[in-house]
């Protein structure tokens, strides 16, 4: 039910944006003079319970119309600690720092430390356990025939408020590599229930494609952070948006970005020839 409301709310907003466009195609690119602002440090870090190298990207902000990739911050000293052990990260390319191959353990709190020109930026985050999925299923998207909804079947633990994010892989390739393609939700409407085929990802795929769904148990802070990124980017523009504003993640010293820590569960399925339409019994 929650998902239906979300779709509907968004759709109303889209209409409001579209109306002036179709009215008589009244849009025009314009030149606006914008001031510059001081550079902010931006840290995008991920640490999970997968056995792999974990990466932290450090860049800085730029003028709004700078139109080049974000400038990298090189030569930083970056570590991740679980309270007992400290792991050093190596700069593998400009601004990209990597751990050795290792896995985080759910239940631990991980702290990122980045020392940049004498200033130390830190962030801590707890790693929640991700409940397993029983299986995944597929349904044809009601808005667009070429898209397939990925459905999950899983028992949601009822002990506390959890937050989740979902990514999808098609034939071993991550197809949701941009934040606005990542789906995320809290469990307010389903807390403790058996989730019986709720759509949590959307892929442009055909019969026979192998789809792997990845579920992350994210923190509430990270959920809120992704929501704000969405509000200021792809969801931005309608009259129902509140006033735009700046926001911070979990990093100290007013660094932008987020150090996200989560554990991961996966399920794989092959799209069958007889996919039902969404919302059909």
């Amino acid at each position, binding site marked *: 039910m929650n998902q239906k409301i979300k779709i509907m709310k968004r759709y109303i907003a889209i209409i409001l944006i579209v109306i002036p466009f179709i009215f008589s195609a009244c849009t025009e690119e314009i030149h606006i003079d914008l001031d510059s602002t001081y550079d902010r440090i931006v840290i995008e870090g991920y640490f999970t319970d997968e056995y792999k190298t974990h990466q932290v990207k450090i860049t800085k*902000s730029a003028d709004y119309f700078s139109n080049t990739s974000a400038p990298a911050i090189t030569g930083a000293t970056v570590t991740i600690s679980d309270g007992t052990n400290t792991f050093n990260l190596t700069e593998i390319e400009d601004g990209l720092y990597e751990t050795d191959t290792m896995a985080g353990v759910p239940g631990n709190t991980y702290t990122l430390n980045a020392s940049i020109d004498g200033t130390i930026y830190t962030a801590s985050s707890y790693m929640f356990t991700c409940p397993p999925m029983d299986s995944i299923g597929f349904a044809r998207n009601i808005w667009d025939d070429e898209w397939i909804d990925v459905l999950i079947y899983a028992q949601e633990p009822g002990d506390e408020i959890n937050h989740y994010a979902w990514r999808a892989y098609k034939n071993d390739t991550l197809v949701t590599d941009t934040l606005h393609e990542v789906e995320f939700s809290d469990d307010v409407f389903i807390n403790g229930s058996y989730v019986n085929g709720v759509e949590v990802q959307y892929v442009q795929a055909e019969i026979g494609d192998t789809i792997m769904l990845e579920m992350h148990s994210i923190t509430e802070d990270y959920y809120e952070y992704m929501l704000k990124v969405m509000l200021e980017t792809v969801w931005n523009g309608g009259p129902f948006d509140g006033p735009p504003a700046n926001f911070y993640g979990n990093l100290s010293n007013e660094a932008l970005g987020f150090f996200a820590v989560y554990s991961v569960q996966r399920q794989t399925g092959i799209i069958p020839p007889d996919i039902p339409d969404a919302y059909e019994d």
Partner: protein
Amino acid sequence: MLLLSSDEETKKNKLYFYDLNLKGNYKINDKNRMYISWYLGRDVFEYDDLFGFNWGNRTFTLRWNHLFSERVFSNFSFILSDYDYELGQYSSAAGFKWTSDMSDIKIKADFTYYPNTKNMVRFGVNGTFHHFNPGLAKGTGDETIYNELKMPESNALEWAGYISNEWKPLENLTINYGLRGTIFQNMGKSTVYNFEENYEKIDSTTYGSGDIYNTFYGLEPRANFMYALNSKSSIKGSYSRTKQYIHLASNSTAGSPLDIWVPASPNINPQLADQFALGYFRNFFDDTYETSIEVYYKDMKNQIDFRDHAELLLNPEIEGEFREGNASSYGLELLVRKQTGDFTGWISYTLSKTEREFPEINDGKVYPASYDKPHNVAIVANYELSRRITVAANWVYSTGAPVTFPIGRYEYGNMIVPIYSDRNDYRMPDYHRLDFSLTYKFGVNKEKRFKSELNLSIYNVYNRKNAWMINFYQDDQDPTVTKAEKVYLFPILPSLTYNFYF
């Protein structure tokens, strides 16, 4: 009715509006008269039966004018009014309709009493029942996939009593002073959300139909004077305090307008304003030209504005999205008007500033109100070529409204995220527009019962693309490129209107 149909594609777009106005009065006898009026107006926009929106308002007034004596006049009125809008997408199972409306029922009694030649006393009482329905969304069609989504409706009673006296102590001095008392009561049936200090919702309380669950009181003194210096010039001054129980909250995103009417409630205080004004008025050339210069200052308390990232769309807990603060406004108004002769019109210029200060918005720093437009010019000219033909033109100009723009950007999750300026630190492009009209009157020479006129008008003569909103976006082809685009609504728009009077 106006149809925009420049090509096949836009033929699907439909835009029309209508206004209906009926008025009547009946003289019962020398002491009693009845007046009745009814108004209906609606603007409709539709796109190819797929979706559309429309809004309109209706007013009905019944007034009884009664003379108690040579010295006491009275009016008793009954007024119904309502405003609504609907927006919807009407296709198949995914169709839905969203409606919102606000209606008032008002009764009032107004008296004018002339105790002697130097005083005129006005007094009266009135009561209004307000009904607010901020938003209801539901699916259309038999097999709808949507649940009904509703923001809580609410009701309020507003009572007012007033008395004022217009006193003429001298031939050239008029002093008017008065007091107004008001009561505002929130009334069920309604659901009120309760919030913590940090605006997190705790729980909600539901009140039954007719339950009064919150009451505000107000006392509003006011006074003004007019002093005639000579037959050509005068000075006017005024002070007034007003308490307003209904807020109009304007969203201040990059120029896309949305106004929400918000009644005072247990969560939202009524607004309070003190206004001072002083003006000098002078006529020239045997009163052919009137000129004036006025200054004003307005101090406003308990204003509301949206918090950062407020969620406005069908949010039942919208009261938690508002923050309270203060505002002040001051300005200078200049006017030159010609009222007589074949050529009439006026030129006005206003210089003003409105600022807001909210502890929880913009880090507590002062910012311009979203309606702050420092320079405002209007030029209106009418020329009567003959008894049948009148031409008119008007030009308006105003500084662009304040908006919040991105001043920097950064990358996160393969996306470009904007870094914003302080609240309302930038301005939309200036707004200006010229309109022209030509009116031809039929039946001017005959004592006809029916009169009519044909009006040709051109809106936005020089096709100024006034920005309605400005969007910033990431380019599809090259994701490192960010761009700005403006959306503008009405290009040059000729229309033909036929008016009929009877």
